[in-house]
C-alpha cells in the first residue's frame, strides 16, 4: 500500500498527457503560422482552476497549469497538483449531494505572436457532476476549443465513464491523482462541393463509353432494321385493309 502511494506521488508530478493540435495548419492562416515559426517561441502558460463546494457557490482555486508550446507543432501540457486530504473529503461530500465540479480557464489566444494583445478579461467555465468525477477515479478528458484565429472560445470536461452509479470509492488511492487527457481542438474546415473529382469521373465514364463502338452509334443506325421492318409492316397492313379512320394508333 505504501509503495503504491509513493509511486503515485512521483508520478503525479509528471502526470500530464499531451496531445497535438488536430489540424495545425488549418487553424492559423498560412501567413501567421510561418511568422510563428520564425519568432522565438518559448510558450506560455495559463492557470486551470477548479471549484467544488457543498453549498454550490463557486470558489475557484488552482488545479494545475496549462502550458502551451507555440509553433507548427502546437502542443499543450497540463501539470497539476495532487488533491489534498481536505479537498478529497470535500469532493466526496459534494458528490454525495450531487453537486457540481466546475473548472475554468481565462480567455486567451493561443497564437504566440498575439500574446501581447491577448485579452484576459473573463473566463470560460464548464462543469461535470462531482459524483461522476469521483466514480471515474478522477479520470477526465478536458478539451479546449479555439476559433479560427486561435482564441480559446470554450472548454469542456467529461469523465470516463460518465455515469453516477453510487459506487463506493476509496479516497486514499483513487482520489489523489488526476488522470487527465487534455487536447486543443481547432475548427475543422467544412468541405466544399467537390466538382473536380466528379468531372474526372464523368470523363472516365465517357471514355469507357467511347471505347465501346456499339454505344456510339446513333438511334437510327442501331435500329434501322426494326424501323424499316415496322414501316414495311405498316404499309402492308394499311394497303391490305384501308380502315375508315386511317391508320389507327397502336398502343
Amino acid at each position, binding site marked *: 500500500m505504501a509503495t503504491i502511494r509513493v509511486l503515485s506521488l512521483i508520478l503525479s508530478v509528471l502526470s500530464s498527457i499531451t496531445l497535438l493540435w488536430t489540424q495545425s495548419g488549418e487553424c492559423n492562416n498560412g501567413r501567421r503560422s510561418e511568422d510563428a515559426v520564425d519568432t522565438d517561441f518559448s510558450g506560455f502558460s495559463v492557470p486551470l482552476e477548479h471549484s467544488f463546494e457543498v453549498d454550490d457557490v463557486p470558489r475557484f482555486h488552482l488545479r494545475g497549469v496549462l502550458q502551451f508550446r507555440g509553433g507548427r507543432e502546437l502542443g499543450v501540457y497540463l501539470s497539476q497538483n495532487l488533491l489534498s486530504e481536505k479537498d478529497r473529503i470535500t469532493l466526496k461530500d459534494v458528490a454525495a449531494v450531487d453537486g457540481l465540479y466546475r473548472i475554468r480557464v481565462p480567455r486567451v489566444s493561443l497564437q504566440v505572436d498575439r500574446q501581447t494583445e491577448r485579452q484576459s478579461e473573463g473566463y470560460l467555465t464548464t462543469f461535470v457532476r462531482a459524483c461522476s468525477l469521483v466514480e471515474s477515479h478522477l479520470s477526465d478528458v478536458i478539451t479546449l476549443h479555439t476559433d479560427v484565429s486561435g482564441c480559446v472560445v470554450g472548454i469542456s470536461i467529461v469523465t470516463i465513464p*460518465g455515469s453516477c452509479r453510487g459506487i463506493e470509492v476509496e479516497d486514499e488511492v483513487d482520489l489523489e491523482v488526476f488522470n487527465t487527457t487534455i487536447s486543443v481542438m481547432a475548427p475543422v474546415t467544412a468541405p466544399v462541393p467537390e466538382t473536380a473529382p466528379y468531372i474526372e469521373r464523368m470523363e472516365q465514364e465517357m471514355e469507357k463509353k467511347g471505347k465501346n463502338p456499339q454505344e456510339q452509334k446513333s438511334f437510327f443506325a442501331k435500329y434501322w432494321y426494326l424501323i424499316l421492318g415496322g414501316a414495311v409492316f405498316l404499309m402492308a397492313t394499311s394497303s391490305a385493309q384501308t380502315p375508315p379512320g386511317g391508320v389507327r394508333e397502336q398502343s
Partner: protein
Amino acid sequence: MAWLVVRLAISVSLLYAASAVFEDQVGKFDWRQQFIGKVRFALFDTHSQASKKLLVATDKNVFASLNSRTGDLFWRHVDKTGPEGHIDALLMYGQDAVVVVGNGRLLRSWETTVGGLKWETVLDTGSFQAAALVGVQDLVKYVAVLKKSAISLHDLSSGSQIWGENLPDSDSVQYQTIYSGENGLVFVLGIVPNSHIVIVEYKIEDGEIMNKKSVEAAWMSSLESSCAVVSSGILLCVDQITQSLYTLPLQSAEQTEMRQIHLQMLDLEVASGFRPVLTSTQPNPAQPPLSEFFLQLSPDHHILLQFKDGLIALLRDFSPSYLAAFATSGERTVAAVMSPKNDTACSINLFSADTGRKHLDTTIIYHMDPNGGKPNRLYVHAFLKKDDSVGYRVMVQTEDLTLTFLQQPGRVVWMREEALADVVTMEMVDLPFTGTQAELEGEFGKKAAIQDGLLPMVLKRLSSQFILLQAWLAHLWKLFYDARKPRSSVKHEVTIDILSRDEFNLQKMMLMVTASGKLFGIDSKSGTILWKQYLENIQPNSVFKLIVQRTTAHFPHPPQCTLLIKNKDTGLGSLYVFNPIFGKKSQISVPTLPRPVLQTLLLPVIDQDYAKVLLLIDDQYKVTAFPSTKNVLQQLQDTASSIFFYLVDSSQGKLSGFRLRKDLSTELIWEVVIPTEVQKIVAVKGKRANEHVHSQGRVMGDRSVLYKYLNPNLLAVITESTDTHQERSFVGIFLIDGVTGRIVHEAVQRKARGPVHFVHSENWVVYVYWNSKFRRNEFSVLELFEGAELYNSTVFSSLDRPHAPQVLQQSYIFPAPINTLEATLTEKGITSRHLLVGLPSGNILSLPKMFLDPRRPELVSEQSREENLIPYAPEMPIREEWFINYNQTVSRVRGIYTAPSGLESTCLVVAYGLDIYQTRVFPSKQFDVLKDDYDYILISSVLFGLFFATMISKRLAEVKLLNRAWR
C-alpha cells in the same frame, strides 16, 4: 417499335412527374391567399361609370388593381423590397396610372385594365419631393416630378422628358410641392424653414422661369404638412400657434405678404397639441382646385370651409367627426364625413361640397369590429345614379389594416385583412372534438369515476352510446341529403361552431401573429378567418413569441396559448393569454414582467390543469413561472436541478448556461465566448420539441447499424465573420450542448458568407450559404453519429455522454438563391424527411433529404447500392415537379411552418410572406391512404364474386359428393 420506344420514354418521364400534384388535385387540399399590405394610395377609376377598378399602392411596395365589387385582385405588381421599390406617388388619369418608384428613381406608366407597363423612364438622381399631373387647356398632357434640386416635365403618353430644369438656390431652399392650374404655368413651392416661402413659376412649354418671388412666413416649418392650394391658385396655410389661416395668391405680383385670417373670426379653435390639417381637392388636374376645403381642428373635429373673394366662409361644422374625404363624379364633388353614432358604429354621410348641404338618404352605417382597431383612412367612390343624384361607396381602412368596402345602407361588400401580408410567427393547434366526442371523453374523466357508483356509470355509458348513434344517423342522413343536391350547391360555410377535428386531424386551427399586432385564427382547410383580435398599443418594433401551453387534448380544460410581446428596444415584455380556438382572452391572471425578458422556456412539467409551465428569465437571471400555482412551484422545486437553460448575447459573443435552483434563482454553470472581433453570432437554433425520431440508427450495407447521435439539447450556432473580404470571409458552425456547454463540433466554411439559412433536426444540420469565391449558393449537411455502438441506449443524458460523436459533412451546389428553409415533420417520424426550400421566385421546393446525405459515395459500391445511397453529384437538382405549389407562387416567402397531421404520411405546410399558401405534402407518398381513384367497385365485385363462387362451388361439391355416395 420506334413509337414504343418514344412512348416508353414518355411514360418513364411521367413516372418522375407522379410525385407532383395531379391536375384534378389542384385546389383540393391547398389554398392561397394574396395580400397587398397597408394601403398608402388608393384611387377609384372614375373614368367610366361601370368601372370596377380600384388602384392601390401599399407600403409593401405593391401596386395592384382590386375589383371593387368583390375585393379580389385583378392584377398585382410586387416591386423590390426596401427603399428601392418604395412607391412615392400614384397619379391616375383616364386609363393610365403614373407611379414614381424608389425615391424618384423611376417613373412608370401602367395600363390599368390589364396591368401592363406602358412606359418606364429612369429619372435623374435626387430625392423625390412631389409629383403632379399638368394640364394644358383642359387636357392633361404632362406629369411633373419635383426632386430636391430639379424639376422635370414628362409627356404622359410616352414618358419622354419635355424639359428638366435645376431649381434656383436648391441648397438653401427646400422645395416641397408642385401646383399647376389652368394658365399654362407650373408653380414650384419651396420653403426656408421659419423664414420665407419661395415660389417659382415655370412655363409649361419650355421650362422657362417666368417669375420668382419670396414671401415672408417666419412661423412656417413645413409646406407639405400645413398648406394646400385652393380655388384658382390661392395658397392656404394654417398655423396652430397663432390660430390663424394665411392666404396668398400664387400668381399676383404685388402681394408680397401672406394675409392672416384669425380662426377666432370664424369662431373656431384648434385643439391644443393638435396639428391642424388642410384637405383640398382638385378633381381635374387641368382645372384649378375647388374653393372648398376641409380643416381638421382636432382628431374628431372637421370643418368644411369655402374661400371666396378673399374671404373664408364656414359651410358646415362636423363635430364630432373622425374622417372626411372628397370625391368627384362627373362635375359634382361631394364630401363624405364619418361621425360616431354609438360605441360600436359610425355613420357616414354625404354632403355636397359647394354648399355643405346634406344629401338625403345617403347614410352608411359602419359597424366597428369590437376586436379591431379604429378607422383611420376613408376612400370614397362617388358615382351618378340614373336619376342624376350622387351615389357612393366607401372603403375604410382601420388601424389593424382591415379594408372594408361598404355600400348603402351599410352592407359590407367585401373585406380584406391586409395585416396578414406581414405574418411574424404562427402555430397550428388541433381542433377540439365535437360535443358527442367530448361527451364520451368526459365520461371517463377521473372526477366522474370517483363520484358515481356502478349503476350510474352504466346508465351514463348507455346514454352516451345512444347520443353517438343519434349523431351517426344524423350524419348519414346529411350525407344522403347532400348527395341528392347538385354538387355546386353543397357549399357549407365554415363557422366556429361546427368546427371539429376530422378523422385524420388534417384540419387544424392556424394561429397567425402579424406585425401590426393583430392575431388571426384561420381554418387550415379552407383558409377562412374564424376569429381575429387586434391588440392595441403594440410598438411597431415588437417581437412576438407564440407558445402553446395547453393543447385541445385536455377536455374539459380549454386549450391555451400565450403570446409574449416584447419591445425590441427596452426588452420589456407582456403576456397575452388566449383560447386559440375561439380567440377569446383568457381570464387567467398573468404575471407582470417589470424587467426585460431574456429567454423563455416551455417545460414539459404540467400543472393540475394540464397547462405546461412557461419559465421567463429576466435580465437579472430571475425566473418567473407561469402559471405559478403551488403545485407548479412544488414540481419545479423537485426538478430544479435538472432544468437547464441557455442565454445568447450576440453583442458580446457570449453563450452561457444556467441551472435552476430550488428557490427559482439561477446559477451560471458554463460559458462559451466567441470573440466578436473575428465573428459574430447570427443565429442559434435548437430542435423542435414536438419532433419524433423513429429509428435510432441507420442500417448499413453490411447489415451493421450506425447509431445516430440524438441529443435533444444540442444547439446549432451559426456565426459570420466580421471580415467581409471575399477571400477571408467565413461562416462558422458550432454545435453546442445546451446543458453542459460542451462544443460537440466546430466547423468553418471558408470563403463563405451569409445570409445563412439552416435547419436543425434529428441528428443533422443543413445550412445554406453564399460561396463568395465561386459566387453561388451552396448547401452543406452535417450528420452526427455515435458509431456502431450506442453508449446508453435507454436514456439520453447530456451529463453522461463522454464520447464525442462522429461528424460527417458534405456540400453541394444549389443553383438558385434561397429565401427560407424548413424541414417536414410527421407524427411519428417514420416518413422520410424532405426539406422545404422557399425560393425568391415564389416556388416552394420539396427537396428529399436523401439528396443531402453526407454518406453519398464518390464511387458506387455494392454496399452503397444496398443502402440506397445516391452517388455523389456536386450539383443539387431542381426538378419542376418538386415544386409543391405548382403555379401558386408565394410572393416574398419569408417563413415556412410545418406541422404533423394524424396521418403518418402527411405533413401540413404553410408558407407565408406577402401571400399565404397552405398545402399538404407526402414525403414518402401516401402509403397509409388509398388513392383518390382507388377502384372500390372492382375490389368489392371481385370479393363478392369470389364469395359467391365459393358458395356455389361448395354447393356443387356437396351435390357431387352426394351423387357419388349414391353410386
